[in-house]
């Protein structure tokens, strides 16, 4: 007996929202070609979802270990600020000592390394200092944005660097680059976790940390690994956000995105209590959340209703994932 995948309800909800749009939002599925790239609401969704999708890919692993990473939004701000500083090199910037010229490669690398360092910091706090993940990452959530503002001196660092901006604004094979970046990251993480034993180890650790240690799993290193992956993902997301507006907004980049990422993960069927995880589910969850957002934006719904709609969708998907609830819905068997 094969059980249904945990993300089936997220997929159902996604199809529902898309159907709604097909009937209620004119032109939602229209796709045009403009300058050799596809252009339309659906493409927008796949483009806009990139930062949250990246965050939630990493977040999936962290959540599978019973953790949570609240700092990803702040990490986005930091990596964006680092990248923008290296490109724009504004006067008095504390990163003026580093000159990477126009090398997009080195600048992206610097952003990723920023994310990696943050991830390692979180990982050390969780695995070494044994601080509970919510609190440990809360520290960087608060302080990290401070660091980002420190780097950018509280200003939006704007730049004009077409090569770097193409990370977010360019297109390859008709699809926007952020889409491909997500595909790349998802593929790498999928291979890392499912073609090696890391996935099993992560699920074991999340399922029973004591038992995991007792069977010789290096839990400390594993925690470092998952938080680092999340950090790197957040670093990339930060650069997409910066490239998108050709500027690093330390105050607002990634603000509250950690919540969206957590929602995407759990709507995608990974339990916050750790253990089993599903990367595919996470991607579906992220796309669902973004489809909702895009729908709401396109239809010009009042912002406070956006919050309410989000809340209701989350609750609906959660309820549908609850075995108890489904059991209640099912008609009672008549006792013989």
């Amino acid at each position: 007996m094969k059980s249904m995948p945990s993300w089936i309800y997220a997929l159902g909800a996604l199809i529902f929202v898309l159907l709604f749009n097909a009937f209620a939002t004119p032109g939602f599925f229209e796709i045009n070609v403009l300058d050799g790239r596809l252009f339309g609401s659906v493409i927008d969704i796949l483009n806009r979802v990139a930062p949250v999708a990246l965050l939630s890919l990493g977040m999936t692993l962290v959540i599978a270990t019973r953790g949570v990473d609240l700092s990803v939004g702040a990490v986005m701000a930091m990596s964006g600020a680092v990248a923008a500083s290296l490109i724009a090199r504004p006067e008095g910037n504390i990163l003026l000592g580093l000159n990477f010229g126009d090398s997009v490669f080195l600048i992206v690398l610097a952003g990723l390394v920023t994310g990696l360092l943050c991830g390692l910091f979180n990982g050390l706090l969780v695995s070494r200092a044994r601080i509970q993940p919510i609190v440990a990452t809360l520290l960087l959530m608060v302080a990290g944005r401070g660091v980002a503002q420190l780097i950018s001196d509280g200003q939006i660092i704007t730049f004009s660097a077409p090569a770097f901006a193409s990370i977010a604004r360019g297109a390859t094979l008709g699809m926007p680059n952020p889409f491909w970046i997500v595909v790349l990251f998802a593929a790498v993480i999928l291979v890392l976790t499912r073609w090696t034993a890391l996935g099993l180890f992560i699920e074991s650790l999340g399922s029973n940390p004591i038992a995991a240690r007792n069977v010789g799993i290096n839990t400390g290193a594993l925690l470092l690994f998952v938080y680092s992956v999340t950090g790197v993902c957040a670093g990339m997301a930060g650069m997409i956000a910066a490239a998108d507006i050709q500027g690093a907004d330390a105050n607002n980049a990634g603000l509250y995105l950690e919540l969206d990422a957590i929602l995407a993960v759990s709507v995608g069927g990974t339990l916050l209590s750790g253990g089993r995880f599903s990367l595919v589910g996470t991607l579906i969850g992220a796309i669902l959340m973004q489809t909702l957002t895009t729908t709401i934006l396109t239809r010009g719904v009042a912002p406070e209703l956006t919050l309410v709609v989000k809340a209701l969708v989350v609750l609906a998907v959660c309820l549908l994932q609850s075995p108890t609830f489904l059991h209640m819905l099912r008609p009672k068997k008549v006792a013989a």
Partner: protein
Amino acid sequence: MNRFLSQERLPVLITSVVAIAMFLIAGFKYDNFLTLRVFFNLFSDNAFLGIVAVGLTFVILTGGIDLSVGSMVGCSSIMLATLIRDSQVAPPLAVGIVLAFGCLIGLTQGFLIARFELQPFLVTLAGLFLCRGIALRISQQSVQIDHPLFDQWASFSIALPQKSSLSFAALLLFLVVGIGWYLSRLRPFGRAIYAIGGNRQSAELMGVPVRKTLIGAYVISGICAALGGVVFTLYTQSGNAVSGTGLELDAIAAVVIGGTLLRGGYGSVPGSLLGVCVLGIVQTAITFDGTLSSWWTKIVIGVLLLGFLLLQRWIESAALSRRALAPSGTN
């Protein structure tokens, strides 16, 4: 085996020692810091946070979490203000309505979590969005309250030496902490909360009314959050839909600093009050210093919290390992 240094009291003890040390250090560094006025301000200024934290403590003790408390504060604040100003409802009745609303939200969240075994993080995250949405729907403008009785409440205070005073809000805070302590220590309900946090399946098999208790915890949290909103409204004599943004994180930090484990089962209500004081001391000290830029403020708060948590962890592990060694002292 020293019951005094139990897993429940040790963190509270550590937190109090560190809090006192911080207070003294800041007192030596800044003029006028070591005064009763600053000390009592801690309670008056953080009353709403403290009340919210007490409610949240119950939820966290069950191993759950309530992210909706911050929005609940905003929601109850704007609701109270519009009730009094626009609907001309008498303040006591308006407060009652607001508390009932908090109770209702808590009940709904608790029901979903207990009955359908949904994850608290998600349900209350939805609650966070929902309450904020409702609050903004009620009014996006902030609403000033001009009502004699309400003014009287807001300006009531007990004068104490050195120009210090305890406000109505602070007294309410002490009352809530007292009730919280009583509920958690001296009522079977409180023991049930701890038992569920220790091991939910076991609690169920031991006949603890798990669902009812869980719902109770979220109801308490909802009511406390609503009351926090009322106190906030007293504090500012106005309602504002966006107030309390991010407050849930402060409250969680306070509860954790106060020695309550997020996985549930261990911790105490007075500990959370202490956690609130620690946050208050840090904030006051930074204001007294007054040289930190916006970003350095964030970084310094982060670093201080980090230092605090590491210290707490370090002392705890040292004390616990000493305790583990204790029996060998006899032979």
